[in-house]
């Protein structure tokens, strides 16, 4: 099944992303950091929690058995702070086809309670051609 091109620009409901000390500590251990700071890619946890809505969207028609992670980009406006809660806003930025493969790019904004942008994430999933 091909991706539904009509979903470019679709905005998904925001989710809350608490920057909990315990989870940050577990993440830091898993990636080999010393725990003295919030690892910059801890934002992946919030991004992924929001991305699940896109992946599971029946309107999109994503065949998860053919998906690989192609590209990832983060822009950090400042480091995350322990104990803060960000809101995570995913949106389908583009759907492209190249060489029989499909490229789904989701842009996710993470904002603080004052509405300030803290992190901008861009995730490109590749749906591999069949066969």
């Amino acid at each position: 099944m091909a991706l539904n091109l009509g979903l470019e620009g679709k905005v998904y409901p925001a989710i809350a992303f608490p920057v909990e000390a315990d989870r940050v500590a577990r993440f830091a251990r898993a990636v080999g950091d010393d725990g003295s700071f919030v690892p910059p890619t801890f934002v992946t946890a919030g991004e992924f929690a929001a991305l699940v809505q896109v992946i599971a969207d029946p309107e999109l028609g994503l065949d998860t058995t053919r998906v690989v992670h192609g590209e990832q980009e983060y822009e950090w406006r400042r480091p995350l702070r322990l104990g803060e809660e960000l809101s995570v806003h995913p949106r389908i930025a583009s759907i492209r086809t190249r060489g029989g493969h499909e490229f789904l790019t989701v842009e996710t904004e993470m904002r603080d309670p004052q509405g300030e942008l803290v992190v901008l994430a861009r995730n490109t999933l590749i749906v591999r051609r069949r066969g």
Partner: protein
Amino acid sequence: MREPVRFEDLRVGLEVPSLSKVVRREDVKAYADASGDQNPLHQSDEFARAAGFPGIIAHGMFTMAHLTSCLVRWLGDPGALLRMRVQFRSVVFMGDTIVAGGRVRELDPERRTATLDVWVTVERDGTTEYPIKRSEAEVRPG
């Protein structure tokens, strides 16, 4: 952390000290739990074999996190990392040694920022593979 690098220390072509580690199953499991990405491709050998791999592979983001650790150790400050864009080009298996590195490509003295080429390599069967290739980071050291 080591002594942080300063903008004045940077030159085009300067290499970031590389950082290597052996990828262990328990770390990938811990990463799945902490990140929330429980894709069975990273946990079930049976599932991974059905997908055409000899065994489970690490999350791409696990490898990107390692590259980030490499840069933050060099910078001495997570806030000095402004942006990173990576392309995932090869998979990482359990037991692989992943080596993260980078090199200064361009300096902007006005903004006191640098753009780096960054990568992660794995030596496998006598050849160098690039789990992360043609990727870049923008940094602003103190």
